[in-house]
């Protein structure tokens, strides 16, 4: 995948993380959903996101990240 119009030069760690999340949106959230005989249930896969938020919140010592003051509240979607 190539990022063709990135508008800022974020730190490599942020960049890595951002493209990983783009990928997770796709491999976890979409794609052909067929239940294999050993597959995790769809609910299990959906829970991965929820658990990840908890993991990351707990390992980050400085608490929640600041939100831009003028930003609309988008995290309610979660």
């Amino acid at each position, binding site marked *: 995948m190539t990022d063709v119009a990135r508008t800022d030069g974020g730190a490599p760690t942020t960049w890595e993380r951002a493209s990983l999340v783009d990928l997770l949106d796709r491999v976890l959230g979409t*794609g*052909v959903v067929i239940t294999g005989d050993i597959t995790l249930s769809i609910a299990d896969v959906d829970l*991965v996101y929820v658990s990840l938020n908890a993991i990351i919140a707990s390992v980050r010592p400085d608490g929640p990240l600041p939100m831009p003051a003028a930003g609309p509240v988008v995290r309610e979607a979660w």
Partner: protein
Amino acid sequence: MNDMARGAWVYAICRGVDAEVLGTVRGVDGEAPRAVVGDDLTAVVGSVDLARFGADALRRSLNDLDQLAAIARAHHAVVEAVATNRPTAPARLATVFEDEDGVREMLADHREALTRALDHVAGRLEWGVKAYVAARPGPAAEPAGPAPATGTAYLSQRRAALRAREASQHQVSAGAGSLAERLAPLAVDVHRHRPQDPQLSGDTRAMVLNDAYLVEADEADAFAHTVTGLADAHPELSVELTGPWPPYSFAVIEEVTP
């Protein structure tokens, strides 16, 4: 299952795939992926150790960010290799069958839906468009001038600041809406992903748009050009274009075996 048990991890479904393409990548368990053919459909699968990729093991490893990242990237590498070769319907992460017979059965059971999904994505590419609230504050976000002399003046200044903030939020939402509206006609299909959580993305800017667009392959340049133009026309937004992606967001089939 015993320690040596193996399962068939499904990466993608296509209509035939060149063997050389599969030879260029390794799958989630380091294995060489191979083609399982059922009628005119092909599933690209890998033989994986169920001690690591069975349901219980996956429930643990997918909840570890590093392991999830490694699995997702390996899955994606195979999907991408197949998608650059043939029209491809990527399978959702962690679709595992006991053996290749199970995979063939799945191809037969879902033949119509899979065929429709492949027809939908053939000759098209997925592009991601994300929009964030631009990092710099709007021009009227902070009132200028000397500190207020009285409580009344303070309150009036505070109300003006709140109104400015509301106006700026309105401008951002309207901007994101107009961006999506202008892009939709250029795409065959649009999928709206949930805005990414800043804790996951590590990006502190508030995301207001996280769309995927399915675009004809030969219109990719025009699409990118339009996105760049719209980004310039909307200074209240930071716009990012990612892709091309295998058509993850569009090769969706509705049938799910109970």
